């Protein structure tokens, strides 16, 4: 097709399991639909770009009032409950044959999704470039805005 490619710009600011899936699902799918795609990883979202981190992300039951766990909310605060909730959620996802986060990231990279790590977050959290995957680039607010300025869809997740 000769017309200009559609463009999707995402800001990924979370890296618990429910926060990490939407950016990677939408980015990989948009890239498969021939969109130009960029994700800007900021604050906790930057964890998604750390080496060997994606499949270790967790979900906490505390405050997740819609999570179907057979316990009172307050019990979710106890030590170990985050690991319990994470194991439960992973088993539900495996049962539904949902792709692993790493698989979605690999497919995104292969399809040419641009991954931009927030430099300021790296400074705040004392993360150096070597801790991040090789495929990402480093940038700031101006880099994100320049990419998003002519995007058809812009999402903050």
């Amino acid at each position, binding site marked *: *097709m000769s017309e200009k490619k*559609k463009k999707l710009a995402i800001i990924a600011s979370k890296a618990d399991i429910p926060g990490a899936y939407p950016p990677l*699902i939408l980015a*990989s*799918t948009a890239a*498969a*639909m*021939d*969109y130009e795609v960029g994700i800007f990883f900021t604050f906790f979202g930057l964890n998604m770009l750390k080496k060997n981190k994606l499949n270790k992300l967790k979900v906490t039951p505390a405050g997740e009032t819609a999570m179907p766990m057979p316990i009172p909310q307050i019990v979710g605060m106890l030590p170990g409950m985050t690991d319990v909730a994470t194991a439960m959620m992973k088993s539900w996802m495996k049962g*539904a*044959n*949902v*792709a692993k986060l790493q698989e*979605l990231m690999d*497919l995104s990279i292969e*399809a040419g999704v641009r991954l931009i790590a927030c430099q300021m977050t790296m400074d705040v959290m004392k993360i150096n470039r070597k801790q991040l995957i090789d495929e990402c680039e480093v940038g700031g607010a101006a880099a994100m805005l320049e990419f998003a300025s002519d995007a058809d869809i812009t999402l903050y997740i």
Partner: protein
Amino acid sequence: MSDIKIAKTLDAKHLSCPLPILKTRKAIAEIEIGEFLEVLSTDPGSVADFKAWTNSTGHELADRSIENEIYRYIIKRTK
């Protein structure tokens, strides 16, 4: 549809969104332009997704059917 010859079949049964679409993108690149890819899926959401994907990419959704809760899509690679 008797003149359609399937060049490749992608078994995407029991995979959840968005894997059927992501694997279709890879599979379509493995056939020649003008050839047909068959995709099998059990995801009810795939009906809307394959329509959107072919609309967006320009590949042709030549046929679709459902039998025993298995969705079957025939996609012609156009570019």
